């Protein structure tokens, strides 16, 4: 049993959070980019309703993910990374968490400001965070939009970094986040 304080691999739970949220973000971009070009109508309403439900799902998952992370620290960065690289990795990961909160929160506030309450898949309705305010809506819409580009940029950087670690540095940074691999698992002791 590996020491939980010094893991060498992401736990199955951490991997689950990572990949489910990653998949939801892809869905979110697809829904948003499709809806944004549509005229106001039933189709747009449907796409945005799903976008809101998935967005609130991400918000709930990120809360759980952070709580899990506090109890279960992630594996250390591999040796051989320079201090600036370590700093960039930490900033990127922190920015992800900030954006994963900021995106759904600005979206939720946008809906509130336009007096369109957010339903979660029609099962229940979230309370409005702020009152009807057209100026606030426009400001929040552009914030949500700009943050989405920041999220997109950071995701690209994150993917490129993971690939660089895998193919260039040949370390297990990518593999230890992948399910169904043994990378990072303590290997059985070999007698030399």
């Amino acid at each position, binding site marked *: 049993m590996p020491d939980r304080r010094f893991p060498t691999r992401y736990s199955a739970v951490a991997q689950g959070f990572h990949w489910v949220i990653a998949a939801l973000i892809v869905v979110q971009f697809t829904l948003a980019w499709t809806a944004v070009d549509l005229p106001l109508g039933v189709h747009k309403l449907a796409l945005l309703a799903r976008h809101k439900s998935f967005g609130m799902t991400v918000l709930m998952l990120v809360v759980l993910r952070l709580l899990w992370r506090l109890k279960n620290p992630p594996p250390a960065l591999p040796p051989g990374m320079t201090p600036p690289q370590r700093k960039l990795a930490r900033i990127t990961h922190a920015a992800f968490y900030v954006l994963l909160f900021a995106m759904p929160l600005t979206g939720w506030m946008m809906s509130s400001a336009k*007096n369109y309450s957010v339903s*979660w898949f*029609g099962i229940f309705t979230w309370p409005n965070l702020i009152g009807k305010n057209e100026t606030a809506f426009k400001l929040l819409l552009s914030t949500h939009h700009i943050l989405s580009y920041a999220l997109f940029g950071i995701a690209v950087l994150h993917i490129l970094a993971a690939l660089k670690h895998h193919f260039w540095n040949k370390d297990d940074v990518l593999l230890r986040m992948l399910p169904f691999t043994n990378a990072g698992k303590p290997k059985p002791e070999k007698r030399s």
Partner: protein
Amino acid sequence: MIRTLVAAVALCVTATVAAAVTAGAAGTATSYLADPQQSRLQFAGQQAGAEFTGVFHKFTAAVEFAPDALASSQFDVQIDVNSLDTLDNDRDTTMRGADVFDVAHWSTAHYVARNFTKTATGYKAAGALTMHGITKDVPVDFQFTQSAAGVKLVGHAQLKRLDFGVGQGDWKSTEWVGDAVKVSFSLVLKPKG
């Protein structure tokens, strides 16, 4: 002495019965108009799973009512559909458009009730609503209160928007915009004339 007492009791009973009979007899309904400043007409629908509410800013409600004169009571409400307000211009514009309320053709909705019954909690009006060119029965439950503060009429109704053809084309679907609509009102009545 006893004879006097019996006579007095008999007189009392007669007076009470007479009063009861008078009260039970049909009185006359009082004519009122809803005060536009203090009255409110609201609707609530379902959009993408969440409730949204709106009001009609402009409407006139002529009410003739008295609890002891249900037979001669009546409601006549004219609603300016164009005055709808759901606190969002995009939604309001869509709702006024040809595929929803089509205010260009049907700018007023009209509710008339002449049939009233007493219920456990208040009264029920069996009236008909004409909206979007279609007339359907819409019962309204309400309470009528008279106090020092004034005369109030508070109530609600349930209707289905598609019964009135409100929602054509894509808006006929009830997947993202519900069919059921709740209507509620709070009217402050002022005697007419």
